[in-house]
């Protein structure tokens, strides 16, 4: 074992040239970086719009869409397929960390992982729809902790909304059980 390690270490350590903790290419242009970030996300969103003939910001099909889009009421589909817009209004995306119920935050996790199957270019990896959706909320996500004091009433409102949503979900389960009986 010692021999194994010595070879491994000697070869791989040989590439190192000093302390691991180091800045490689000097200072980073923060402003430019932020700008590039927003451009990149916008570009992704546009590509997705073109690919699917759907405006994800207004949640409306484009005129020249190759797909026939058909509206389905949120109540008819499982939670994870519901529009992120609605979920967002419910404060779902924003306040993941403030959720007290473990089960709720678990659900949020699965929401962001499966929210929009096949929304973007890739068919297999399901998540692609989400990054664009996040585009809108991300700023909020970034901002919330900073402005927490000023936004405390919004925070509160979101919390109650989650509770509302949770109850709504409970009712769903109850009613489906009834129909099953």
């Amino acid at each position, binding site marked *: 074992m010692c021999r194994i390690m010595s070879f491994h270490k*000697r*070869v*791989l350590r040989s*590439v190192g040239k000093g302390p691991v903790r180091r800045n490689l290419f*000097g200072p980073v242009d923060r402003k430019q970086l932020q700008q590039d970030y927003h451009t990149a996300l916008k570009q*992704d969103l546009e590509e997705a719009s073109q690919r699917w003939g759907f405006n994800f910001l207004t949640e409306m099909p484009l005129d020249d869409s190759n797909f026939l889009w058909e509206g389905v009421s949120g109540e008819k589909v499982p939670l994870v397929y519901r529009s992120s817009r609605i979920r967002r209004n419910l404060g779902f995306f924003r306040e993941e960390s403030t959720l007290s119920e473990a089960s709720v935050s678990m659900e949020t996790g699965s929401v962001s992982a499966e929210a929009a199957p096949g929304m973007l270019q890739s068919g297999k990896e399901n*998540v692609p729809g989400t990054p664009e959706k996040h585009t809108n909320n991300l700023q909020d996500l970034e901002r919330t902790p900073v402005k927490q004091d000023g936004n405390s009433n919004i925070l509160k409102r979101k919390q109650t909304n989650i509770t509302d949503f949770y109850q709504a979900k409970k009712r769903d389960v109850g009613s489906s059980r009834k129909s099953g009986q």
Partner: protein
Amino acid sequence: MELLCLEKDTVVRAQQDPNIFSDDRVLQSLLTIEDRFLPQCPYFKHFQQDIKPFMRRMVSTWMLEVCEEESREEEVFPLAINYLDRYLAVVQTKKGCLQLLGAVCLFLASKLKESRPLTAEKLCLYTDNSITSQELLDWELVVLGKLKWNMAAVTPHDFIEHILYKLPLPKDKLSLIRKHAQTFIALCATDFSFAMYPPSMIATGSVGAAVCGLQMDRAERALHGDNLSELLAKITNTEVDCLKSCQEQIEQLLRSSLRESQERQQRLQQEALNRAASKGVDPATQSQSSTPTDVRDINL
């Protein structure tokens, strides 16, 4: 009564499933899909303007060091490099962004492969805080989008066990050969000339170099020279000549790395001696610990 938790704080890995390695379909599927995860083009030639190959070497070296320092799983580093290359093949990038991207790729690869992934804070620390956690998270999203969320890329590591399983290797040498092959794979990932090679070829070349380097007993004829190359080539449907040249390239890379390492070590030893001499300590006792202990390992 006291409650004691005797669980050790170690990574627990699943045992190898022999079904995966004895069934040829797994290997064939890997070979079929591996090309999908190659970078779209050798991006330094026509695409990238600001960044140069030596910068990729700088950032990949740093990424490897972070993985070594943090004792990450072997697959994390090559997978992160796969992300980096694929991203750089589709997005023109400024060199100021490169370390951030390297950190993002490590972050993603670690999350995909490990039960206890690297944290954003730690990665930022390794960049000497030249980037913030928020930037890391922001750009994580960008990289994911550009790679179309295709993160479960095939890497050379995926082939290692398949290849070892099919070679008539002595049991006692197996773990040593595996470890050496993994080292070669990491080494290849730091060098851009391997970036466009299919992972199976790098894996085969690495195993080949590992077996040759250890110079097995003469008894096992299948593991020598052309016999070994032909056997390996057959396992991964590679052309023998391609495989041989790949293996030679790997051995070349190892030689130059070891040379660098030796020079570095000598330099360090000299410095240590100088320091010791200036403090009036007997230099002989100081230098003993850093003397290379194992010459056999460098056999090629």
